[in-house]
Structures are given as structure tokens and as C-alpha cells.
């Protein structure tokens, strides 16, 4: 990756708010993405991952949600301030999204083929038969068995994994430059999850699509991401290259997340869970939002920490970073 190449997507200071709330649901989120790369946004459920992606797509449920600040330059144009007609021209064409729930995200009364073909017709202005041929090609590409037959089936006739494949086919039908995937495998069986992730990686390599992959699963991150953004309570608390973050997590929240992950965490840290609760999305504390749960809290944490690069490898928003590993686990001292 050449650092000087213009990013495909450059999000700056994105904030989202619920009407009448006293704090932002998503607060001051910034990241950028190079063409063809994968950024994973990881964090607990409710931390604002989906809303971030929906805001980029222009699909926030407004009211009550609305973007209250920031820009998102996609190929140099600000997605957040585009008029409706322009947004419609971009989404489903240059950028596409797949959702967590394959069961409810497909229209139950329309045939699979039509649901893919309509996106092709809309953006390429091609005839019905050309769009249908493209739909078939896409279904084959996502390796749905008996693709020709599936074209004329309805969503309820497909298994969960098949539906998610169909969603992927639909999203990639117009060769988008950017794919937003919001927990695409969370609702699926473990074996199917691996297959779908594998498929997404293969297609991404083949088509050169950049991807923002939302997940709460660090295993998925390790497997898929070039870069990681760790979100906590609506803010990015740590962001950088995947390897750097796994090798040297610096934010207490990231460290906690990794500790609770059996496959990667070290044995002594495995049983650690982060005490306390996530603050309410509509009523966030001032200052560091993790402070109330943080064992390293000090006075200055009442002020909001900015992302900075104290450890030299990647950026983290914590006054105490980098935290010495030896501080990590008070329980470590006691014999297990």
C-alpha cells in the first residue's frame, strides 16, 4: 500500500445523533480506506457500527437518527451532503451493502432473480434479459448450486447461507468499488460462516472491491482485515493495521476485548471480562466514554482523549496509553 495513493473513502468527524438526545450516538468518527482493502470495524453490540455504515449509505432511520456533522469523501465527493438523486445513483452501483439478517433482508414476495436484476437494470439501463443473465452469472459466482433454478425461487425456498450468498450476489452485481458488510455471518451456522467469509475474500480479490466489514468477532477480524477500527460507545478508540493491533493492543478496551477471545488471548487472561456496562447511547458521559469501566482511570479521563500515536505503531484514544503489560491483570498475581 502506498500511503500517498488517494483513499477511496475518507470519513472525517462523522457524528450521528438521535433527535433530542444530549450526546452523539456516533461521535467524531474518522477513518479512511484505500481501494481494494478491508477495514474491520469491531466492537460490542450497540456501539454504533451499523449506524456508521448506514449513514455512509444514506440509509439512517431519520427521524429520529440524523448525521450531525462530518464528511465522507467517496472518490472525492461527500456522501453525506449529496442530494437524494445522486445518492441513489451511487448506492447499489459504486457502493453496496449487505446486512446481518439474511432472513428478513430479502423481499419475501419477489423472486431472487428479479431482486438482483432490478439493481442491474436500475444502474446500467439494460434490458430485462441482459439483467437476468447478469443475475444468473452472479448467482453462479457466489456458488449457489442450481443457480438457474434459484433465479425463479423465492427467498423462503433458500437456506440462510444461500440467502446470504444471494445478498452478496445482489450487492456485487454492479461491480461496486466499496462493499459495506454489516455482520454478514453473525446469523449463520459456524460452518456456513467460514464458507461465506471465504467466498467474500475470494470475490474481493477477484473484483478488487474495497470492504468495510463490521463484526464483533475478533476471529473474523484476524482472518479478513487489513486494518481495524475498534469502536466503543460510538467512538473509535483504537485504529491501525491489523497486525499492529493484535500484536500491541493499547486501549484498555481493546485489551479487554482480546482477553475475552479464547483463541487469541493468553491463558491467564482468558477469563477476564470487562466489568460494568456500556453507557446509554443517548446519554453518554463527558470525557472518555470507557472511563466508568476502566481499571486505569485517572483524573484526566474526564476530558475526551484524541486519537494519537503514543506507541509508535498505530493510533489510540487513551490518556494512559500505552499501558504496560505488567499492569494488565490484577488477578494474574494470584495462582490459578
Amino acid at each position, binding site marked *: 500500500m502506498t500511503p500517498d495513493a488517494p483513499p477511496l473513502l475518507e470519513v472525517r468527524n462523522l457524528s450521528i445523533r438521535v433527535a433530542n438526545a444530549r450526546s452523539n450516538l456516533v461521535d467524531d468518527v474518522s477513518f479512511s480506506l484505500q481501494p481494494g482493502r478491508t477495514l474491520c470495524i469491531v466492537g460490542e453490540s450497540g456501539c454504533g457500527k451499523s449506524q456508521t455504515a448506514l449513514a455512509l449509505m444514506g440509509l439512517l432511520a431519520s427521524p429520529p437518527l440524523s448525521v450531525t456533522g462530518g464528511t465522507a469523501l467517496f472518490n472525492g465527493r461527500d456522501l453525506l451532503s449529496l442530494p437524494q438523486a445522486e445518492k441513489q445513483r451511487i*448506492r447499489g452501483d459504486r457502493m453496496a451493502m449487505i*446486512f446481518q*439478517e439474511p432472513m428478513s433482508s430479502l*423481499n*419475501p*414476495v419477489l423472486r431472487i432473480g428479479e431482486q438482483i436484476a432490478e439493481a442491474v437494470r436500475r444502474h446500467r439501463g439494460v434490458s430485462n434479459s441482459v439483467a437476468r443473465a447478469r443475475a444468473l452469472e452472479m448467482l453462479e459466482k457466489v456458488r449457489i448450486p442450481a443457480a438457474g433454478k434459484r433465479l425463479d425461487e*423465492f427467498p423462503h425456498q433458500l437456506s440462510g447461507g444461500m440467502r446470504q450468498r444471494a445478498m452478496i450476489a445482489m450487492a456485487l452485481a454492479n461491480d461496486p468499488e466499496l462493499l459495506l458488510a454489516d455482520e454478514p455471518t453473525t446469523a449463520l451456522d459456524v460452518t456456513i460462516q467460514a464458507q461465506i467469509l471465504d467466498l467474500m475474500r475470494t470475490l474481493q480479490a477477484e473484483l478488487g472491491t474495497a470492504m468495510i466489514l463490521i463484526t464483533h468477532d475478533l476471529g473474523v477480524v484476524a482472518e479478513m482485515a487489513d486494518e481495524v477500527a475498534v469502536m466503543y460507545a460510538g467512538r473509535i478508540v483504537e485504529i491501525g493495521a491489523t497486525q499492529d493491533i493484535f500484536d500491541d493492543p493499547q486501549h484498555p478496551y481493546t485489551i479487554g476485548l482480546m482477553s475475552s477471545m479464547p483463541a487469541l488471548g493468553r491463558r491467564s487472561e482468558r477469563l477476564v471480562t470487562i466489568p460494568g456496562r456500556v453507557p446509554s447511547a443517548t446519554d453518554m458521559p463527558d470525557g472518555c466514554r470507557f472511563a466508568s469501566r476502566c481499571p486505569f482511570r485517572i483524573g484526566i479521563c474526564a476530558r475526551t482523549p484524541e486519537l494519537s500515536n503514543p506507541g509508535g505503531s498505530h493510533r489510540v484514544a487513551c490518556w494512559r496509553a500505552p499501558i504496560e503489560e505488567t499492569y494488565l491483570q490484577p488477578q494474574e498475581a494470584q495462582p490459578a
Partner: protein
Amino acid sequence: MLSFIGRRILIAIPTVLLISVFVFFMQKLLPGDPVLALAGEDRNPEILEFLREKYRLNDPLYVQYFTWIGNALQGDLGISLRTQQPVLTLIGQKLPVTIQLAVMALIIAIVIGVPAGIVSAYRKGTWVDWLANILALSGLSVPNFWLGIMLILLVSVKLGWLPASGYQPFLDDPLQSIRTMLMPAFVLGTGLAATLMRHTRSAMLGVLKSDYVRTARAKGLSETTVVVKHALRNALVPIVTVVTLLFGELLAGAVLTEQIFTIPGFGKLVVDAVFNRDYAVVQGIVLCTAIAFIAMNILADALYRVLNPRMRNS
């Protein structure tokens, strides 16, 4: 699909028979003697007895029932005691009038109610939504007879645009027929439109929040496509249910509306027959209405299957 409809019709047969038994015996339990009504002032016992014999009213009840239902199965619903015309002929004359009124009212209700429901759901909480809801509430609370009389006074008496009453058979002069029926159909249709609007609104509100509508938007489809192709198609299932349920209300309303606009339809036939204890006519009418209801339900179920692919191969 055809085998489905066939099955439904087979199931409907015992239902219709049960209704026929019920209607027949209920009628016999009612006070009043049809022969007295028929003979009028002349209470000569011999004549009364003659009439009873003629109409086989002296047979045991079950014999009377089987005679009636046996004939009915062959398309003979008996003779009206009062007019001496075959019941089937009477129904055949009056039913098309009421069907025309009901169909026109339903079209008006759908044309007003469904778009209003869609718009007020789509613009939920805006002044459009408020306006639609206020109009719907007024539509529901204004009694038909009052609206009918006001319309007659305004549109017919004062402006002279449409005839105040009467009936023109559709096949003789379709345009004039529609003109004559327009006001009654409007009166009957507005109340239904209000009900339909409220149900459409709530069905659409649910559907517009759904994940697949979000997916449709994510494809960059136009809002019109999203609302009509993706949302409305799904909301139609509950809407069709409501239309089926409205059918009863529609018939009851038609009877009343026909009285206001002096339309010689089913309503007048029913009222006259009940007051004159014209058994054969009442029984025939109830039987026909019951069959119409069952047919409507079968039609609605068939429509579900068209609208809802999940039901098709079950």
C-alpha cells in the same frame, strides 16, 4: 391453484347446507303466518287452507325442508308468495343492481383509501398524515343517511349534476347507469375508504420499517419503486383481508343506501320479503348471500396465494 380452489369449494358445500338448515328453521320459528299476509283482508278459512295446501305448508317441517333444498339444488328456489314470480328471477333482477352499487362503492373506497393510507404512512407525523386521519375519522363518523341526503340536496337539487334517485340498467346505457349510481356508491364508499385507509396505513407503516425495504433502498431504487414494488406488494396481504371483511359491511350498507336513493335493489327485496313473510324469498336471499360470502372468502384465499409466495406450495 385450481385444485386449491376446487378443494375449497368442496369444503364450502357442507357449510352452505348447514346455513340452509339454519335459515329454514329460524324462519319457521318466527311468529306470523305467511298465508295470512298473502290472503290480506280475506280470511275465509277455506281459502287459507287451500293456500296452505298449495304451498305445502301442511307438510312436516323436515319434508318441507328437503323439498325446498332439493329444488334449490336444481336451481329452483320456489315462488314468491307475494308476487308469484320465481324467487330466482326476483334475485336475478335485483342482484345485479346491488352488485353494481357494491362494486362501484368498493372501487371508490380502494381508489381513495389505499393511496391515502400509503401517503399518510410514508409521510407519518406530517400534516398530510394528520389531514388523512382527520378525513378518515370524519368519513367513519358521518352517518351514511345524512351524507346521502346532503349530497342529494347539493349535487342533485341545487347543482342538478346527477340524478337524485332511480336506476338505469348497466347494459342498457352504461354511462347513464354509472352516473345514476355515482352518488350512492360514493356515500357507501367513503365510510369503507376510511376503514381501508387506516388499515393500509398501519400495514404500510410496518412494512416500510422492514429490512427488505432498507435493502431495496440500498440498491439505489427510486422511492416510488421502493414504496410500490417493495413495500405495497407486501402490505397487500393484510389489505386484502380487510377488503374481504368489509364485504359484509358493504352489503349491509348497500341495503341502507338503496333506501336513501330509492334504488330497486336487493335491499328493497329483502325488506319487503321480511315484512310480508315471503319465506321463499327470504330463504333464497340468505342462501345467495351466504354463497356470495363464501365465494368472497375463497377469492380472498386465492388472492393470498398469488400475493404471498410462501403459501403457494403449502
